[in-house]
């Protein structure tokens, strides 16, 4: 294995991008991703917050302390992962993290790995999905992604701009990826609108350092309110309204997540009213 450390975007040529390493290094260790070449992209991906633009290389630890960004995003960053992981991990990397589904992490030949069944549906799935879970019941673990979805952020890559909702896609028979990024495509910046109010609430198994059982982000723009959930689908999940929760398709072991989401949604909406 080799490590390249390009100093400009133009020098990035293939290889596995590595920024904070909190996701890539363990995945490499476990053989869940493989690479001949690692590309340290820290020097080429923008960092820091400037107006409504957030560099993808900005650390979660910086965002949790930034008074200018929407409070939902700040709170989502504050409640994400552990202090050390927030001091290492970038917002761009956070958006692209893989599911914590134990079957996927332990390399069961599941749907997400290209197989034909979802082991979680038949097996242990208390942390799993209540939406979009027909073929793969994994849950997307990112708290900030839900916050960014609620505030309607736009993602700028080295090739295009796209609404964050379009960054994610449910895995299909033909394509088991959960993002729409092309091979080698890098997230560079996020354009984050300023809602009039926003809020993030997170239910987890312990008081800190756990992935969301349910995370609820709510944002208000004028009369309009947008809701997005973390930990409830293979991708961050936008909800058209609180009532849309009733369309959930929980598994036996995730039915509680619907009950859990209901008061959290109400509270988040109350908080931004």
């Amino acid at each position, binding site marked *: 294995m080799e490590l390249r450390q390009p100093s400009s975007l133009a020098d990035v040529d293939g290889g596995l991008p590595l920024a904070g390493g909190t996701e890539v290094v363990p995945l490499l260790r476990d053989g869940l991703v493989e690479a001949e070449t690692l590309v340290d992209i820290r020097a080429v991906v923008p960092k820091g917050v400037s107006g409504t633009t957030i560099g993808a290389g900005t650390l979660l630890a910086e965002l949790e302390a930034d008074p200018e960004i929407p409070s939902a995003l700040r709170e989502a960053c504050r409640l994400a992962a552990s202090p050390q992981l927030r001091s290492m991990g970038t917002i761009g990397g956070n958006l692209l993290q893989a599911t914590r589904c134990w079957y996927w992490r332990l390399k069961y030949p599941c749907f997400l790995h290209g197989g034909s069944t979802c082991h979680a549906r038949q097996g*242990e799935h208390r942390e799993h999905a209540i939406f979009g879970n027909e073929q793969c019941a994994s849950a997307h673990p990112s708290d900030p992604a839900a916050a960014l979805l609620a505030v309607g952020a736009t993602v700028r890559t080295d090739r295009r701009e796209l609404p964050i909702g379009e960054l994610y896609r449910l895995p299909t028979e033909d394509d088991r990826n959960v993002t729409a990024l092309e091979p080698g495509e890098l997230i560079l910046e996020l354009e984050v609108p300023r809602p009039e109010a926003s809020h993030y609430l997170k239910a987890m198994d*312990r008081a800190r350092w*756990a992935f969301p059982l349910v995370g609820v982000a709510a944002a208000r723009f004028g009369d309009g309110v947008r809701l997005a959930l973390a930990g409830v689908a293979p991708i961050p999940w936008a909800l058209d309204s609180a009532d849309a929760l009733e369309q959930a398709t929980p598994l036996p072991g995730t039915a509680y997540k619907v009950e859990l989401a*209901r008061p959290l949604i109400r509270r988040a909406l109350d908080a931004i009213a």
Partner: protein
Amino acid sequence: MARLIRTEKEVEGRYTEQWVVVEEDVLEQWPEGPLQTVGRPATRVDGLARARGEARYTQDLRLPGMLHAAVLRSPHARARVTRLDLEPAMAMAGIRGVIGPSDLEPLTNEPNYEGEAVAAVAADTVAQARAAVEAIDVEWEVLEPLLDAEQALAQKSFVTNPRDYERGDVERGLAEADAVVEAEYRTQSVLHNALETHQSACEWEGDTLVVYTSTQFLWGVRDEVAKAFQLPKDKVRVICRFMGGGFGAKGSAGDYTMIAAELAKRTGRPVHCRLDRREENVNSGNRNPTIQKLRLGARSDGTLTAIDAEYECLLGWDGWLPPTAGPAQMLYACENVRTVERGVRLNTPPMDAFRAPGFVEGTFGLECALDELAAKLDLDPLEVRRRNHADHDPMDERPFSAKELMECYRRAEPHWERRHEVRARSEGPVQRGVGLATQLWYGGGGPPSYAWVRLGGDGTVTVVTAMQDIGTGTRTAMAQIAAEELGIPLERVTVELGDTAHGPYAVVSGGSSTTPSMGPAVRSAAADVGRQLIEIAAQRFETEERVLRLENGKIVSDLGGSWAIEDITGLLEDGQILGNGARGPNPTGMRVLTFGIQVAEVAVDMETGEVVVERIYAVHDVGRVINPLGAESQIEGGIIQAIGHTLSEKRLLDPQTGKVLTRTLDSYKLPTFADVPEIVAELVDKPDAHLTNLGSKGLGEPPIVPTAAAIVNAIRDATGADVREIPVDRETMLRALAEAREREKRGAPAAV
């Protein structure tokens, strides 16, 4: 004089009869209360080494030429190896040795649980060893695992014979009851997760095998390894000076020790075999799940008339049947008790002792059921416990050597009284409540246990004994005891432990037995030195021994005058005064137990099912307290572990394959800094007048015993919901709340 006796020995509720030679314990107990050093807070004598990162753990060993082992473990819960070719591994870079099932006892061709060892390699680096394991050519015939408890019961698949106990007539007792609670309680499998994983490094020195290992029992490892390698016992030397936590799971040698020893033998080099975190969480033991069917009956005044309890203990493939029925049998003075414990064998990884095995699980069911019964009878739960207090051992009428449970209840009262004020602080969806639960457990220790003490020419004292300090602070407690007996400051005492070649036999650090076993031996050895010192001083200063005593680092004469200890020891130059000490017997015909009560305050979000433990008060009776500071830490630690057990920790198995899913520390959720409530810890600190020259019992386990029940009883107090299983995660809490709402709608009473 040495005395040969046949005595009952207890470790974690497992009683055996054995012969021991004990020294007559001639020392009177010290007076009650804080002394010069004993009973006063002491910082750890090894605290600085640990805090500075200088303490050398097994993981930190760097022996010259040391190789690293990796183990091929079964990825299946039940399988047969149909083909095993080790050749490809041998051909890999850096490989120095490979062994398979025909080479070593714990390696097997027919694994019966996930993680059972099949083959192992030794290589120059860990990475090379892992790669070689991957390269081993193995084919499995995957067999149907037995995972279902009911199916196992129907097949009578047991690890050991079921254990039955009966006194009185339970059916009659239930018939006489004014209220009966009949309910099923469940506890989960929890994983020890000591931060230093199980590991050993083995090295042959001529005909002696040196084993560096992370262990709770040096001598147990010595005996096991000697037997496996057919060596005289003292040709195995076991060393563990610092160890990174055990909690019960490091009481035996483990496959990793045998593998390291065998590979060291074959390669002629030291070999380190270290489990990684995932192996640790599959393969190093666990607290077994239980299913508990309880029937409790009581008269309207709260007097228990019957306890009927059946425990299915899902042990996994192997292990032993923990005393899950202990609390039901011993906690209350109930005349009619029947218990059945079944150790169910499944194709899951074997259980191992985990801090108060059996009693943690059994206390949860019993103490929750008792509160449900109190609610039915509209009685104060603390009052019900007082009413059923056992004044003597209810199993065989033996007196207790000491029992200060009533004093614990008395001290808990103001904390229990807080419930009115706590409940009143409920607001909106957050309801608050208070619950309590009683604890009992063993912790008396016993012989054989020995210590040596030497006093050098410079007046410093070294305690030498081949015990281990697993992080509980026993090094410090032993130093305090020696300092107290010799009347010298703590700073003058050094404790050398952790090496079977450097000191006499010591007990396992398990079953809360270290301090009550080793402490009296250390005191005896120090007293032996003290006697000699006085004898020498009497000769030197031409006075009578009986007028001399040791005090504040001096030899003091009743006739006036005092001399520094160095005035005597200085005469000896390189000469030393050597003392021997042995643990005396436990009091015959008496039951030695520890007691306590905890009161928990919780806040429950009725909508989200979030449970926050806000405060726990704990008071325990463990006899004399050697180090109040370390003791407080032990109590806090036990409670925090119990909070994990109660709220967030659970080993999950895939129901189809029986494989462990929660093997990493993101998915298996230990309590963090943020999950800790206010903890108020107290100890009765009254010496057990019948127990040894110290009157001290162990404190490692008592604090973890009642916490889960106290929390769950507080949840019922706050919400009216009956939670009958742990962990109380969101799903469990929301379901219990929904059931409580349903019940209220139907107007049914709270308990069945």
